[in-house]
């Protein structure tokens, strides 16, 4: 009896009972402890800015964070899109923020923009990969790790007044499952109120009909649900950025001064800058980080691990054990290695044999040739000998004939020289 009871108890966890406290214990300070810990640790936030060259990305960053990031101006003649991350240490009150701003330099400038989205996607994936690697390490230090994953992508839309550009649609579709996208209408002081209203509706319509998932400000937390819901309806935010100050009334405000009027950045009637700042920095920054980690990063991790061959066992009673899978993979890998080694060795031996055969063949050929040449050489020598003998014979013969002729000649001479003697003799007689 007791044994079965125990079994039952160990297999089924009872519902936790809620009890009321008799007095103040003090664990309501837990959030504060958490906060103070985080504050000492510092926060990191990574923003990706995507938009055409000159559309006002750097100016908006300067305006948002009320500082001058001194970003280099890019030209229109970049060969391809490249990402330029820059990290800054900011401090407000006692909160440290490690801000990384990533610029997609050269976006929209090339004549052929088919591959423009790829460097951006690759960069985002690379940051996820780095984090994953850190997570999978045996000795890891996640609390110390500088998180470079992109928490939000501000997509700058050109204020044409008509609709999104084709490049915008293509790029946002590639990015919406990897990063929180907040679309922004840049340089919004070119659009009048009525045109803006139509433009916003058109853009949101296009995003929805093409299935692009942009970031929605969360409405589940009671404290901020209302304001977030209102803000969601104002997307995309039409912003104007400026770091110059203009005197309006008796105050200096950040504004753009035109001959026909002054556009004030922080005037809600003029543009949605204040809304953007509220949403991005003051209200939802932490939610953006969380979403990046719990949604986009998890998706990446799952895809990556599935690729590597890991699988969540579902239906089986055994829970997923990383260690076992590791062991299995390792064994597989080692046996694969061994097999490959054998193969290579085999191949090597075969090759050596082949080469040896070839060499032998070649040697034999050479030897043959050598013999052949030797024979020819001897043949020639013999012929030359013969000829020489012939020549000698001829020379001898010639010499003999020469001697004979000479002898005859001398005889003849002798005879003629004797004749006059005889004549003389006759005369004398």
């Amino acid at each position, binding site marked *: 009896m007791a044994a079965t009871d125990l079994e039952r108890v160990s297999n089924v966890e009872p519902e936790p009972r809620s009890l009321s406290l008799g007095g103040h214990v003090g664990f309501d300070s837990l959030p504060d402890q958490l906060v103070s810990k985080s504050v000492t640790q510092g926060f990191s936030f990574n923003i990706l800015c995507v938009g055409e*060259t000159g559309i006002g990305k750097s100016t908006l960053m300067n305006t948002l964070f009320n500082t001058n990031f001194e970003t280099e101006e890019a030209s229109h*003649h970049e060969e391809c899109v490249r990402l330029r991350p820059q990290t800054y240490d900011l401090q407000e009150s006692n909160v440290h923020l490690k801000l990384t701003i990533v610029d997609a330099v050269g976006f929209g400038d090339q*004549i*052929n923009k088919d591959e423009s989205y790829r460097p951006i996607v690759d960069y985002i994936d690379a940051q996820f990969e780095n984090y994953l690697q850190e997570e999978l390490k045996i000795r890891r230090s996640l609390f110390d790790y500088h998180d470079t994953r992109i928490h939000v992508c501000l997509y700058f839309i050109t204020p044409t007044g*008509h*609709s999104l550009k084709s490049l915008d649609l293509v790029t946002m579709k590639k990015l919406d499952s990897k990063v929180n996208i907040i679309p922004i209408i840049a*340089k919004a002081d070119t659009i*009048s109120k009525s045109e803006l209203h139509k433009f916003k509706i058109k853009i949101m319509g*296009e995003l929805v009909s093409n299935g692009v998932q942009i970031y929605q400000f969360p409405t589940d937390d009671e404290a901020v649900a209302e304001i977030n819901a209102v803000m969601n309806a104002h997307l995309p935010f039409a912003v104007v950025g400026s770091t110059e100050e203009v005197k309006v009334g008796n105050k200096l405000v950040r504004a753009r001064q035109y001959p026909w009027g002054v556009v004030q950045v922080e005037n809600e*009637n003029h543009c949605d800058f204040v809304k953007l700042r509220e949403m991005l920095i003051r209200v939802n920054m932490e939610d953006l980080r969380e979403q990046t980690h719990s949604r986009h990063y998890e998706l990446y991790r799952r895809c990556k691990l599935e690729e590597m061959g890991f699988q969540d066992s579902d239906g089986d009673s055994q829970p997923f054990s990383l260690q076992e899978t590791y062991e299995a993979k390792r064994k597989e890998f080692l046996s694969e290695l061994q097999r490959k080694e054998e193969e290579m060795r085999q191949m090597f031996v075969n090759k050596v044999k082949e080469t040896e055969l070839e060499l032998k063949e070649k040697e034999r050929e050479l030897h043959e040739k050598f013999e052949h040449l030797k024979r020819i050489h001897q043949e020639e020598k013999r012929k030359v000998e013969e000829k020489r003998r012939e020549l000698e014979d001829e020379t001898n013969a010639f010499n003999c004939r020469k001697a004979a002729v000479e002898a005859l000649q001398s005889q003849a001479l002798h005879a003629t020289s004797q004749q006059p003697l005889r004549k003389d003799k006759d005369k004398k007689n």
Partner: protein
Amino acid sequence: MDKEYVGFAALPNQLHRKSVKKGFDFTLMVAGESGLGKSTLINSLFLTNLYEDRQVPDANARLTRTLTIERRGVEMEEGGIKVKLTLVDTPGFGDSVDCSDCWLPVVRFIEEQFEQYLRDESGLNRKNIQDSRVHCCLYFISPFGRGLRPLDVAFLRAVHEKVNIIPVIGKADALMPKETQALKQKIRDQLKEEEINIYQFPECDSDEDEDFKRQNEEMKESIPFAVVGSCEVVKDGGTRLVRGRRYSWGTVEVENPHHCDFLNLRRMLVQTHLQDLKEVTHDLLYEGYRARCLQSLARPGARDRASRSKLSRQSATEIPLPMLPLAETEKLIREKDEELRRMQEMLEKMQAQMQQSQAQGEQSDSL
């Protein structure tokens, strides 16, 4: 001495009467990426609503959109003078993700008009030649960037020797005055660097009045024109009704020279330089095309030097000839003559030789 009045001082009046009777026709091309305010500007320029029925495609449709050429004709009359204006639009330019070679249809179109005119001119019945050649191309540059983009440069390079280009910065109410100046300077520098020939204003005659000269100078210095267009008439914040754009922070007046260069552009295009644009098209650009055409017919394979020569106004006014700098042509002709002569001599020699050997052969035969 009192000269007798002959009467040819009335010639200008006769010219005036005849031209009024004939009417004017003008073909204007408008080019540039979508969303830069081209249609609105045309409506503002000619105070009509030419683009009432147009449909702007959404992003999906633009993905694979190719460039098409659209022509719209408008007949306008003012003060008894009739103008037949043909507007050539290039919807689809720069719309798709891959814009390689998207300017080729435009180049082809311009050349087709030249070809048509060449054929008409060389025809037997030249009474009613329709001039459909493009007299001027307004090219819109985006005010949101930092100057000319690679696509702009590619397009301008492809057409600058075939049509008068007037560069225009569209939606100029995005720029504060000092930004406008900087952008204009940047564009001018880039045009010079890329050796793109835009339409040059003719110098004023010395006997024009000071006012006119000053206006002319001003116009020249404000190229590229930074324009704002509007189809609406609004109150300017006070009681005046003006053509403009109404914002929460003020109203941009299209016809206010402190706000934008719209007036300059309109004056230049319609009031003062319309005829000159036509003349340059006819005397310089068309003649260049004609020379290239005929050269390639006469000497197939001859290199196209004409396309690399510079446009020079002086030569145009003195001698309406092809654009080749004369010295070069002369040299070419001389060289080719020499070659021909040499080849002829060689031919003759060979012929003589052949005849000789033939004669010899006959001789030996007869022997």
